[in-house]
């Protein structure tokens, strides 16, 4: 295929994914979809391999959905018809947690299947023992809601009433979920129509050829990048805070990354067994986290199945990075998935130091269900977190961003929260001193404080990095850890922890969510004075923190006292030796 047609089709395919995403973003019912944009839309070839995603689709969705689509091909080959629509949320196949429901449609052109269009989004509830379905202390996935393997929700254009009714009978507030489902079904119909229009215009042979070439294109591009990484084996390991409520021991996640020529292998054999909590990963989530990390080091490589091809995996079954049923998995995103990103970044750090960064914060999911005294109505509220990223080779880490795998996700505004739920925010801002010290420091984490304004509610959290905060690189220091505290700074203070489950909160209680900054990069004693002065001026770092961690003295004119700082740094260096 000539490069011009290729380029033209690349942009046309991308705009199809965008169009599906926009349609769901604007017309679904779950607030986390329509405010949070917790959505992934993508196109796949006839074998179910990823071709393209849009500009705000979540990496975690598009990379994992590939496994679901392939499963459909495997199970339904010979039984796929025009007008079929599949639904799926099975993490052991290619779902994330049960809340993320994927809708997938095969696309036919003149009777021949040429590909698939798909869109996933976070439904506010899919049943299970807790409102919102996220349950950090679940011991089996049966507690986390309805597990839907890839099944037809529509066959030949007709709704499969049985499947539909089973789903709607097992979720809270089903009329809202009807809205989510309708919006997804209309999105894949739009995607299907656009692909057919492209085939009409450019010829179906060209479309099929493009699908293969775009995979090859990404593969070759990534191979060139890997080729530049020195051959060798690189190790990294880190720990999740605790195994489960039965065992407070940390859980190891370890990787051996081997680079040979233009190929890489990620071997997770050294990782601990799967846990008896909801903090478990699956084969597809672990692969996805590695791909998302690599992609973020080489942003020019377009996301497609081609990004998977130069990389092989060893992920033993029954480990925390490849749990088997009936393991619970609803805490995956904020725990194992983030840790796999962490160990991958750590292994890559020594392979390509100029592209790597200190460790980022980890996602915190918070779910609260209660009754508003005033209206008597039941509500389920979901809040995710943004935080700091690690320092980099030439500059500080960024602050106030969502996780690497969810770059398209948007925070819900305070004013929307307060109007929809009986809570009142006291603070939502950057967290002073929370970035890991370094020559280039980690970005600031965030702090959110809200009060229960009316009634009572049950609060659950899913997150990690309380005992093992984001680490620094090349002399950079760790960031402040994460946490969840009730009535912080008062006599009624309770450390709820990020493993809180169905904790009863009452009117007047204040909940504080502490999100980590990123790890530092390089020796903090080498930090530039002018940068430090700016951090102080803007209130991002306190003078005490600058003194203790950076050896910098701020004088009473709010300037760096360079002479005093030089002396202090010399003392600190000496003491360290």
């Amino acid at each position: 295929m000539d490069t011009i047609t290729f380029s033209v089709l690349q942009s046309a395919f991308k705009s199809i994914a965008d169009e599906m995403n926009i349609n769901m973003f604007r017309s679904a019912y779950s607030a986390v979809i329509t405010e949070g944009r917790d959505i992934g839309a993508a196109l796949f070839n006839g074998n179910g391999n990823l071709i393209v995603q849009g500009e705000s689709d979540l990496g975690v969705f598009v990379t994992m959905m590939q496994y679901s689509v392939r499963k459909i091909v495997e199970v339904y080959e010979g039984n796929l018809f025009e007008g079929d629509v599949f639904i799926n949320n099975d993490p052991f196949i290619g779902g994330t947690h049960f809340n993320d429901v994927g809708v997938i449609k095969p696309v036919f052109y003149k009777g021949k299947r040429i590909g698939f269009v798909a869109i996933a989004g976070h439904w506010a509830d899919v049943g299970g023992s807790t409102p919102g379905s996220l349950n950090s202390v679940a011991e089996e996935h049966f507690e986390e809601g309805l597990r839907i393997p890839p099944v037809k929700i529509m066959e030949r254009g007709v709704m499969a009433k049985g499947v539909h009714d089973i789903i709607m009978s097992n979720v809270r507030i089903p009329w809202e979920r009807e809205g989510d489902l309708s919006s997804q079904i209309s999105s894949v119909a739009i995607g299907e129509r656009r692909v057919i229009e492209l085939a009409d215009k450019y010829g179906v042979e060209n479309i099929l050829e493009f699908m293969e070439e775009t995979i090859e294109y990404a593969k070759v591009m990534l191979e060139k990048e890997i080729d530049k990484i020195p051959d060798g084996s690189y190790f990294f390991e880190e720990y999740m805070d605790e195994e489960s409520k039965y065992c407070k021991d940390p859980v190891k996640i370890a990787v051996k990354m081997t680079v040979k020529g233009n190929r890489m292998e990620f071997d997770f054999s050294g990782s601990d067994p799967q846990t008896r909590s909801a903090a478990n990963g699956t084969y597809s989530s672990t692969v996805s986290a590695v791909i998302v990390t690599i992609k973020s080091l080489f942003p020019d490589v377009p996301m497609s199945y081609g990004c998977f091809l130069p990389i092989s995996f060893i992920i033993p079954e029954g480990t925390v990075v490849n749990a088997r049923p009936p393991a619970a998995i609803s805490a995956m995103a904020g725990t194992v998935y983030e840790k796999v990103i962490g160990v991958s970044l750590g292994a890559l750090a020594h392979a390509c130091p100029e592209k790597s960064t200190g460790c980022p914060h980890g996602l915190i999911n918070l779910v609260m269900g209660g009754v508003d005294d005033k209206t008597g109505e039941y509500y389920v509220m979901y809040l995710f977190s943004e935080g700091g990223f690690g320092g980099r080779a030439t500059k500080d880490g960024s602050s106030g961003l969502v996780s690497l795998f969810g770059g398209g996700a948007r925070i819900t505004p305070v004013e929307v929260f307060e109007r929809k739920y009986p809570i009142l925010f006291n603070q939502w801002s950057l967290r002073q001193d929370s970035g890991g010290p370094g020559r280039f420091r980690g970005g600031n984490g965030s702090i959110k404080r809200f009060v229960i304004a009316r009634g009572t509610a049950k609060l659950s959290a899913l997150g990690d990095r309380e005992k093992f905060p984001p680490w620094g690189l090349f002399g950079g220091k760790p960031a402040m850890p994460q946490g969840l505290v009730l009535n912080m700074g008062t006599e009624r203070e309770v450390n709820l922890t990020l493993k809180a489950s169905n904790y009863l909160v009452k009117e007047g209680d204040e909940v504080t969510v502490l999100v980590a900054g990123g790890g530092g990069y390089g020796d903090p004693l080498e930090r530039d004075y002018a940068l430090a002065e700016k951090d102080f001026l803007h209130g991002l770092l306190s003078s005490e923190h600058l003194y203790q961690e950076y050896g910098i003295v701020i004088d009473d004119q709010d300037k760096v006292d360079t002479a005093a700082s030089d002396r202090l740094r010399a003392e600190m260096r000496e003491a360290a030796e």
Partner: protein
Amino acid sequence: MKTTNIGIDVGGTFTDGIFLDPVTGKTIVKKVHSTPHNLREGVMNAIAQSGYDLSAVDLFMHGTTIATNAVIEKKGSKVALITTRGFRDVLKIRRTTRGRLYDLQWDQPDELVERRYRLELDERIDSMGNVIRSVDKSELLSLVEGMTSEGIEAVAICFINSYINPSHEEQAAAIIREAYPHLYVTTSSELLREWREFERMSTVSVAAYVGPLLKDYIDILSRDSREKGYQNDILLMLSNGGVAPVYPVEHIAPRTLLSGPAAAAIAMKGISKQLDERSVISIDSGGTSTDIAIVYNGELMTRDEQEIEFGTVVHLPIIDVATIGAGGGTLAWIDRGGMLNMGPTSAGAMPGPVCYNQGGEEPALTDANVLLGRLNQTALLGGSFPINVALSHDAIAKKIAEPLSMDVYEAAQGMLDIVNENIANAVRRLVANRGFDIREFALFACGGAGPLQAVAVAKTLNMTKVIVPRYPGITAAIGLLMSDVRYDYVESVILPLSELAPAQLRKRYHVLLTKASEDLARADFDSDHRRFTIYADLRYMAQTHELTMEIDPEDIAGDGWDVIAEKFHVLHQASYGYAASNDEPLELVSIRCSGFGILDKSGDIGFFEVGGAAVPKPATERSVYFRETGFQQVPVFRRDDLPQGYSGIGPVIIEQMDTTIFVGPGDRFYCEKGGNLIITWE
């Protein structure tokens, strides 16, 4: 009553003036160089050169990019932002998204107001509008006091939940204005009464950032024009496609960021209407970008937000203009995977495309058009700007053709194809988002580079007609004279329809309509010249996005919501491909009202007399490349020579001072009334 109106649009390179004589009905066009060091000089030059006496002018309409440039070039005022305690980082955190999905080296752009100038006041209002903590005057004054020594010029105020109760913002503004009369003070709730604090905070920050600059400019321009005898307030083109009196500046400051593109869109709408075209899409291509706007069924499409750059949002009604990096200066480059890309980087005016011979080395779209013979190969701008085609050839050969192992002309054609596809995709997205069928539309080509690409873009989109106005390069100035005064009002409601009686809604609309009437009266519109449209933002109960629906007062005249509900289901189906069942509860989020002050316009603005012989002769011919047939000789006409009613078949090139039009082999062209050129094909 006939009036003498003038419109002056200031762009980066040229200042365009358009003058309408009420007696003869004639339109005069003047193009002078812009004067970047002091923009009003160019404005006064254009007026002076036209020979018009400002004391005889009734309405002076004006378009300016001063606010847009201040934001893009980061040259706005030093602003202090005052917000509720605990929330100063809303401006920084924004909505937490990444501008590039996978890129650890990416950073958010700097905030317009630095963190140390974002101050927190210990006040609070809850989501129902109840006061929890009042504004403490001495606390507020001490905050501002600390800032004055820092040289702050403007203060933006944005408190949480001010959309439902603006009293704290109003109190704070009054206190600061009284104590510091020289400061420019603006509040989020006076600009928009909608929820979502980031969008309001960003909007008011932009307003404060551009306000003082705009005010200085307007004050001096107003003074100058008064000295020359002009007696009214100057009318400024706003992003919503209407004009408004320049005072009070606080009202218009954040509403001028799309002044130019909005004016061009108004011209597109006006000219299309004169040609009886109901649904039209415009592509307005200049040196660096292409603006795309839609008229559907005679109405310009609008939306509720503009993102000036990543994370800098103005949440106010604007003409729905999509901008993409595709223009004459758009650069070609090959990525590491060996794929040819166009833009979004542009060579700009300096160094410009390689053929300008100003030091540019990377081939631009214009280089491809010059090499293929579609643009004049010796000089542009009506012969006044010499160029060098050999430089284009060498650059495309070396930078594109050789690395891709392609023929140099094929490579140039490929550059064109990619730009056309990029524009087509942007058009498709804009149209598809609204559920329209693109085949119902004609394509309106303007800007210097638009008419060259338009036919190819239209064919890519399965469209069948292109309209090229008489002066594609001055559409924004023409739009100024075609506009009416427009004010927008919005108020948050956020109630299920079941908890609201139509009578209550009628009362709330009445409040907005009264305000609109008062503002129009203040701008000297009598009741015969006022028009009003009302809208409702509705959604299904659980959704958080709304659809804006125009309301016929008859729809809410009775006691029930049946008509509204039915209309909404239809609109939802058309917009998103599904509708909920009839008993699905609806929520009313906001009510809106637009008040229009209808300006007297005379003559056929945008229609020009055309001359020339009944059977014009080509001025010259030149060799032009076609992918299928290679080079072939193509006649080149001068636009000025084409009389009304003349028609022909391509390939033909038509040149004029401000653009070049390309008519492909077999395409028919026709000189319509008013000098507009229509291109069609089978």
